[in-house]
């Protein structure tokens, strides 16, 4: 390829990438910056202040909603991690079917709103009272799928001969699972749990449809944004950003390091 063309191409690609990265991070920087703005409006800078964070701590409506969200996310994480891991082992070991695989990923592809109204109809049909419990059930449905996907990537690298070795050495099936299989896929399970927590913690649409009169944090944030800008939201947003970023970076590290180690062992 002529070198000059290659250089022009690189320049165009580089420029587009700068635009895209800027596009992705400008809004985040603006929110974080404004959360420390004394004036609290995007119109002008009134000096550095942490008053909006103080206001956030005194906002009982938001704090209550935050507690609800925390409870929901923790319960959802516990249930969907167990179910998702079992699902992953089952899919990987017993029923390898392409059709089932793609059917499982439908909820991840179909827009949330469709899943939300489907679940709402289902809860109404069985006569469940809408509240935190229905939100939990709804979140488990799709969180489980993400957990199983992440655990399956670990199981995919798994060398089954070590299980056979354990059984040759006299370990029962259960002992093999607990002492060999489980420790090996544990990083995948933890990464799955962190992702499950983050998704449930941030999820709005499905919670909004299946909540009844209960309110999670994102639901409150939505109504605040809808009915006028409040500077407290900037502080809320910054807190949420920090929580999600931390969770995801830890999950990525866990899975990344485990994957690297597995690779080194294989080589």
């Amino acid at each position, binding site marked *: *390829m002529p070198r000059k063309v290659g250089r022009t191409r690189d320049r165009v690609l580089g420029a587009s990438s700068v635009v895209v*990265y800027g596009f992705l991070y400008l809004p985040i920087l603006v929110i974080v910056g404004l959360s420390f703005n004394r004036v609290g409006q995007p119109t002008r800078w009134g000096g550095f202040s942490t008053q909006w964070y103080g206001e956030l701590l005194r906002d009982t409506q938001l704090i209550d909603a935050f507690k609800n969200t925390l409870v929901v996310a923790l319960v959802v994480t516990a249930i969907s991690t167990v179910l998702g891991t079992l699902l992953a082992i089952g899919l990987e070991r017993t029923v390898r079917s392409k059709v089932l695989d793609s059917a499982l990923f439908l909820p991840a592809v179909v827009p949330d709103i469709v899943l939300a109204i*489907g679940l709402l109809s289902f809860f109404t049909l069985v006569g469940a009272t809408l509240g935190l419990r229905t939100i939990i059930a709804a979140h488990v449905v799709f969180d489980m799928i993400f957990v199983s996907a992440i655990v399956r990537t670990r199981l995919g690298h798994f060398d089954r001969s070590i299980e056979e070795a354990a059984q040759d050495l006299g370990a029962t099936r259960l002992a093999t699972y607990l002492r060999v299989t489980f420790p090996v896929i544990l990083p995948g399970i933890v990464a799955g749990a962190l992702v499950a927590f983050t998704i449930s913690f941030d999820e709005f649409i499905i919670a909004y449809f299946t909540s009844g009169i209960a309110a999670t944090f994102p639901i409150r944030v939505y109504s605040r944004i809808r009915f006028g800008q409040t500077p407290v939201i900037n502080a809320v947003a910054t807190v949420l950003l920090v929580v999600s970023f931390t969770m995801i970076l830890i999950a990525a590290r866990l899975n990344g390091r485990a994957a690297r180690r597995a690779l080194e062992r294989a080589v």
Partner: protein
Amino acid sequence: MLFVVPAGLVLAYSFFRRSAIGGIDYSFTFDNYVRAVDPFVLKVMLFSLRTALLTTGIALLFGYAVAYFIATRPERYRLPLLVLIVLPFWTNLLIRTYAWILLLGNEGLINRSLRGVGLVDGSLPLLNNEFAIVVGLLYAYLPLMILPLYASIERLGRPPREAAADLGAGPVAGFFRVTFPLTLPGIMAGCVFVFVPSLGNFIVPDLLGGGLQIMVGNLIQSQFFTARDWPFGAALAMFVITITLVLLLVQAWILNREKRYTARAA
């Protein structure tokens, strides 16, 4: 099962009637679909399709450039660059949408900056229109375009491109006749991942469209909350589900054809 039951219910509800008190009258009818042919509803659907298509097109253009850029960097830079693309995606969609209100509003950062340097007098109409919705949707789903594109470009490596150049193909011809067709599976996946959620989104048009430009997601939402006409809402949702399934089938068909083609070539 957990998914099939709710989906089946949506299908079933779409054939029922709305009862006088806003409940569901369990009698079979096609009315909900007939009502969807109403000019207002059609307009909303066309607007949704157009907006989702526009979003997907722009995402493909920029997504391809970025994915190509990352895939051609030295290996140790690739993962950090990808993580930076994905990171914003893992934060709350509400927050990400809200940020654009701050940026695009009449007193928002962009308008104030433009006024500050004297480029505009009043303010550009950036918020509460289709432009704002497309920006919001792009911001929400661009990473979903970049990831599959990156995966397929990276898998390609350099050889096919170099072979094309050796055989005398110019860079443009080389791209359109070699790289582009070989990355088609990634392109298809990225387009589906962006188009489908854009089509059904109601937060972005709700917050950035100012309630004037509504999409099918908003219509579904209002049937379930304010209008309390669940069967009609379900019929509208069937429209979204049908389009999703058709797109997935087209994608599977292209992937299969691709596979058969390579198998025959081998």
